[in-house]
Every structure is written in structure tokens, then in C-alpha cells.
């Protein structure tokens, strides 16, 4: 099966302003959302208590449970929501107790004891200190990986490539965070793992296109950048789509069959893969020109590099001959 005509070069850069406008809207829209609606920190980061209760053979009596909680001084602000199916609920509140003696699972079980037959399936308690520690570590994880990537690409390619890649990563992370805010997905450790995976995925995409650009700069018949980019993106298009499709196939199955615990994770991955693929083409690549990347200059640089290498080999050869 062949999806695209291999020989054809599509004019991606021709629509870069349209795509850029869409991107900018999403990007600044996301920032606005983050400042107004904000993120919904799960208990991993905010600290608090989460209890998951499953009722056997019947729907959870949410109203009854809400009434019971409302009459308790400490628990009256608890949020009680359906989880996955009508028979399962999660109860969440922000208070925790430092003492080991306190057992919220048993407490809630006792409180609900005449509400039907149920099972406490999960009790998570995260102290506020750990919550903020986890949050700091999460932010550090994102920053550290961005810096390391910046260094790696800077060394393996060139500083303009590194900057373009990082800007496109930041673009992706912000939009994914915007989506998380819009869809009110809880930000917890799984979500963080998903964001970092998106980062890695989008970077993969960018690097594969950059690798092609680096190669085409040397060999292409085009001498201006957008021509080289169009050619490189067209050549990698089949790969980009193939990999997006296989990864999406995996993540979409995870979304439908992976269970509720992994729902947030898979939604973020789906959005991230789409955004990451688009940004590699329409953000990362044209950004090279903004940083005044010039094909001719780069070619000259590569030629000089090649010459130096040859010179070295020549000297070495002479040296070795001299010794013989």
C-alpha cells in the first residue's frame, strides 16, 4: 500500500501563515485558559484524600451519599462524582490528617454502612507537603528534559535547530495543558507522565524532519530554505503519518479498553500526538528561518567541516606513510 506519491513535493510552507494563525490561536487560547480556568490539580499535587467506592448490583446512591457527607463538619466540602459507571463513585476532599491512626477508608465505610452493599476499592491520602513536593518535581522533570534536549540537539545539529525544537515543544506542552484545563482533566502523576511522553513523541517527529533537512541542505537542488523544508517534509510525510497512525491505534485502544484509571492519560496522548505531528511541520521547520537559518551558510559550514576532516585525514595519511 502506498499512500503518497513519493516524488511529489507539496508546498507546506505555502500555508504556513494559515497554520501559524491556528497555532497561535490555540497557544494563546490555552494560556488564557490556564490563567482563567486554571488546572484541576488531583490529590497527587494538591494533597488531599480520594476514596473510590463500588456498589455491588446497584447504582451508587449519590444523593444519599451527598446528604450524609453534608452533615459532617470536616467532609461537607467533599466532591462526590461518578467514576466510569453509575455503580462506582469517587469521593474527594482536601483535608488530610498527619496522624497514622486516622483511617479515612474505614471512616467512610462506617459512614456509608447502611447505603447498600459496597466495596472500598481505593484510598489515596497525600499530605500537603508531599503534594507540593511532587508538583515541584513534576515541573523540574519538564524543565530538565527540555534543557537536556536543547543541549543534545545543539550538539548534534546546530543551535538554531535546538531553539526551533524547544519552541515547538513549549508550544505543544502549552496547548496540551490548555486541553487539560478545557476538559477539566485531573492533573496527577499519570497526567505528568502523559505530558512528558507527548514531549518525547513530538520531539521524535521534529528530529526526523530536521534530520532530513540537514541531509537535503547538502544535496537538494533548492537553495532557499522553504524549498528545502517542503522537500524534506514531503519526503518524510509517509513516515510521519505511518507512525502517527500506529501510535494513535495503540493509544485509542487504550482509551476505549484501558479502563477508567487510564482515561485521562490516553486523552492527553491522543491530543498530544495530533498537536505534536502538526507542530513539527508547521512550527519547528519554519522557525528555522526566523532564527535566520541560511541554506548557503550551512552548506558552506558543512563544506568547511568536510574539508577540515579531509585535511586531517591527509595529514594522518602522510604521517603514517612517513613512519613506514
Amino acid at each position: 500500500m502506498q499512500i503518497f506519491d513519493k516524488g511529489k513535493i507539496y508546498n507546506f510552507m505555502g500555508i504556513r501563515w494559515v497554520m501559524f494563525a491556528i497555532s497561535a490561536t490555540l497557544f494563546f487560547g490555552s494560556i488564557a485558559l490556564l490563567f482563567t480556568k486554571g488546572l484541576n490539580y488531583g490529590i497527587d499535587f494538591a494533597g488531599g484524600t480520594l476514596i473510590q467506592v463500588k456498589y455491588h448490583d446497584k447504582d451508587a446512591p449519590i444523593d444519599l451519599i451527598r446528604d450524609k457527607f453534608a452533615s459532617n463538619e470536616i467532609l461537607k466540602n467533599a466532591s462526590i462524582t461518578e467514576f466510569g459507571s453509575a455503580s462506582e463513585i469517587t469521593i474527594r476532599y482536601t483535608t488530610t490528617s498527619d496522624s497514622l491512626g486516622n483511617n479515612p477508608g474505614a471512616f467512610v465505610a462506617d459512614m456509608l454502612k447502611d447505603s447498600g452493599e459496597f466495596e472500598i476499592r481505593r484510598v489515596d491520602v497525600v499530605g500537603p507537603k508531599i503534594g507540593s513536593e511532587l508538583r515541584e518535581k513534576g515541573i523540574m522533570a519538564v524543565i530538565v528534559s527540555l534543557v537536556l534536549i536543547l543541549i543534545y540537539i545543539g550538539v548534534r545539529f546546530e543551535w538554531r535547530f535546538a531553539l526551533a525544537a524547544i519552541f515547538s515543544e513549549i508550544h505543544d506542552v502549552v496547548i496540551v495543558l490548555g486541553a487539560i484545563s478545557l476538559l477539566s482533566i485531573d492533573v496527577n502523576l499519570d497526567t505528568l507522565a502523559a505530558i512528558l511522553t507527548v514531549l518525547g513523541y513530538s520531539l521524535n517527529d521534529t528530529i526526523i524532519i530536521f534530520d532530513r533537512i540537514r541531509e537535503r541542505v547538502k544535496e537538494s537542488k533548492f537553495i532557499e530554505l522553504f524549498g528545502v523544508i517542503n522537500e524534506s517534509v514531503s519526503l518524510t510525510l509517509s513516515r510521519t503519518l505511518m507512525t502517527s497512525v500506529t501510535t494513535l491505534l495503540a493509544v485509542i485502544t487504550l482509551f476505549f479498553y484501558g479502563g477508567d484509571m487510564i482515561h485521562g492519560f490516553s486523552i492527553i496522548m491522543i491530543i498530544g500526538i495530533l498537536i505534536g505531528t502538526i507542530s513539527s511541520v508547521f512550527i519547528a521547520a519554519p522557525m528555522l528561518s526566523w532564527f535566520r537559518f541560511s541554506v548557503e551558510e550551512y552548506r558552506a559550514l558543512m563544506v568547511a567541516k568536510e574539508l577540515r576532516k579531509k585535511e586531517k585525514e591527509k595529514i594522518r595519511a602522510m604521517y603514517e606513510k612517513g613512519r613506514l
Partner: protein
Amino acid sequence: MMRSRITYRLIVFILAFAFGILFSMPSFTDSQNGKKVSLGLDLQGGLYMLLSVQTESAIISKIKTIASAIKYDTDKNDILVDRLKADENGINISLLDGDDAKRLDEILTKISGVEVQKDGLNYRVLLTPQEKIDTSKYAVDQAVETIRNRLDQFGLAEPTVIKQGEDKILVELPGIKSAADEQRAMDLIAKSAHLQLMAVDEKRQDIAQTMNEDEAAAYGDLLLSDAKNPRYKYLVNEIPILDGSMLVDARVAFDNQTNMPIINFTLNAQGAAKFGDFTGANVGKRLAIVLDNRVYSAPSINERIGGGSGQISGGFSIEEARDIAIALRSGALIAPVNLEEKRSIGPSLGQQSIDQSMVALSLGAVLVLLFMVLVYGLAGVLANIALVVNILLLIAVMALFGATLTLPGMAGILLTIGMAVDANVIINERIRELLKEGHNIHTCIQKGYQNAMSAIVDSNLTTLITSAALYAYGTGPVKGFAVTMSIGIIASMLTAILGTHGMFEFLSRKIERGSSVLWFGYRIKRG
């Protein structure tokens, strides 16, 4: 003319295949032989706790222990001390008689890890900064050891107790099923089991009920509640006669008269000597037996007690007495622990998570495998063989290194499946390009791998970098996710690059003869 060639690539791949099958099999079968992938608590159910050790308390208690040693030595040497008082920063000593100064100096120089400031007859004994660090560190290490001992004796399957960071302890208890079990395990962990034998301040005990803590402190005393009747207060000398660190054994026994469970304890030689000296010198006075700052009993001393054994009675239930004895035996926690994070997952939820992720995993894998064959024909089949070996290797390596498979880890495997084919997609696309340019198939394969290599290496290394960041800053399940991702990527370098190349080389003659439509899903213009 090309022939089937067995290259080093193929051999390495076959070895990897054999390795993968050999070491991943135990994880798929029920047999007990061989190492299996261990399931995280989110998949098998259980209790996860993160505790922090209050190291400041360890420092205070260290100061008190030193104070108690100084008091013992000054009493023994007949040094007249006007005042000996410990606070959270150090110990103040005032001498009554300047002639004793030299002998006190001698006692103090023998104590390690302290600085002594002198001002006439007033002494101030402080811990050195290094000693404070050592004490904190020791408190955490000791807490890990103690909690591990206690949980071992509690009889749970495979408890995990490990130190995390500077002052935290991670406890994992798989197989905790009921809330009651959970409560007992938590009580056992939290119990400081700090046994102290303290002298009752007989002069002022009568007015203890109306006294407040500040007043008590002014006399160098502490106010402690009775264990059974918290309203009743005992006024005891702040500096204990001895504490649980000198305890060697604690057993449950039954009181002859009441038939109630009691706990018999035995002290080591040093403790026995101190106990004997004290009881000998204080006949007729009361001795408070204090456990975790509550007075369990305060019997009058009838005679000198040698041999170093005593008992705690206090209306315990048998279970309670047993847990206290376990806690005493395995040692006191020098510093109390705080619960920072607790997650408990019921066994049914764990099973449900496994079932659901298994369905997602197999379905996802089947879709990806089908898609590869659809697009790349027989080359897709080779990529799929490499993918299967990749997954086997992933499981084998996880089992061998004792890595834990968590729910996000399962997602990581599925993602690896989606992304591992990427290397083969890149390679196959390169081969197609070259085929289109009309090169012969052998050249196409060799050059295809060459051209694809830099992109694959760069993209895999950056993914490894993000995984490393995730591992370094992640906790629990996120770490598990990073581990599976990293192993998956490294394994895919072996299978998707070396493995498929080796297979292509081996089959090159067949490829040359066969139609390239079948092989790469790409039609070559002939002629």
C-alpha cells in the same frame, strides 16, 4: 549473484530472541521457577505508604540520653549538681562546688559528639553539627530497620521498606485485604515503642493534678498521663533512669492473679546495672513505667531489683500486648514517623486494571501488526517479528532486574508497541525511496539502513533523555513508566535495527527474486 547470508546481525538477533523467550517465560506461566515481573501495588492491590521521620525529635532524644548519662555519672561520683536540665538545644549544668569541676570535665570529655561551653560553674553541653547530622541519619536508618523488623514479624507477604531521599521511608505492603489489617499494620509502624523507666517526683506528686506543663518544667519534671485514665497525671523526673535502647527482649505473659496479658521485658547488662542501682537507692519510692509518653504503671519499689527484668501491665488485649511486644523487641523508633502519603488499592480494582490493560495491550498490538503488514507487505512481517521479540525482551529484562510493572507501565508498553515500529517505518520508507530511484534491491537495503540511522539514533536518544528526566524526578508509578519506556527503546534498537537488517540479509536472495510489491508494498517501474 547474491546468496543467503548469515551475518553477525542475524546471530545477535537470534540470541536476543532466545534470551527473550527464556527469561520472559516465567512471567507468563504459573510456575514458581525463574524470575517474574513483579506487579506494582496498583495492579495487585495493597498498601503504599510514604513516611517521614521527624529527625528533630531524634536530636532532642539524643540530648536527653546524654543528660541521663551525665546524671548517672555525677550521682555515682558524688558530684554535687545544683541543676541539670535538658532543652531542645542542649544541656545546662550548674555545679554547686567548684572543687568538682575537674571531675565533671573528665566525665564530659568522655562523651563524644558534644561541645562544652563553660561559664564559671555553669556548663552548657551542645551537640556538634556533625553529631546532629549523624543522629538524624541514624534515626532514619534505624526507623527503616525497625519498621522492617516489625512488619516481618507481623507475618505479611513480602513487605518492602526502603529509605527515600533524606528523611523519608517508603513502605509497600502487597496483600493487605481488609481495613482492619491495614489499621493494625499502620499502628504497628507508627508505634514509637519508646519505653522509659522514670522516677516519680514524690515531693510534688500530690499537687501534680493541678499543675501545668510549664510549672512541671520549672522543677525539671514532666507531666505524663496515665494510660488507662488520661485525666490522672504523674509528675516524673524529666531525665529517664533508662530507656528502651537497653532492652533485649519483650514477651507476652499472663499475670498470675488477674490472668490479664502483660509484657515481660529484659534489659541488657548495662541497663540491669543502672536499674539495680536506682532501685537499690530508691526503695519506697515509685517507678513509672512509661511507654510512648504514657504511664502504664507506677509500682512502689520494695527492694533492689537485680537481674534487669520488669513487666508492663495495663489491661491490654492479647493482640495489643502481642503488637506492643513485637514493637518493643524490634526496637523503639528513635524519632516518630509522620504519614505523608498513603495509597491503598483493593485487590478487585487491581485485577480489573490488569484485565483491562491486557485487553487494550493485545488489541493495540494486533492493530499495529495488521497495519504494518497492510502497508509494507513482507517487510512489515519482518518488522512485526522484531516487535514481538522487542516485547519479549522488555518483559525478560524487567523480570531480571526486578523492575515493577505498574498501570502506567502497561501504558508504556503499549506506547512502545506504537513507537517501536517507528524505526522500521523510517527504514522501510528510505528503502522505498531508493527503490523508486531504481537501484538494485541489495543496494537499497544497505543504503536504506545507512540513511535512516542518524534519524533513528537521534530520536531514540532524545526519548531516552526524557525518560531519564522522568525517572529522576518521578515517583512510584511514573518511575515504572520511565523504566518500561527506556528498556523498550533500547530493546527496539537491537530488534528493529539489527534484527530486521539481519533478516533482510538472510533473505536477500528471495527478495531479489520476489516482487517488491509483496516485499515493500511498493511498485517498481520496470524497464
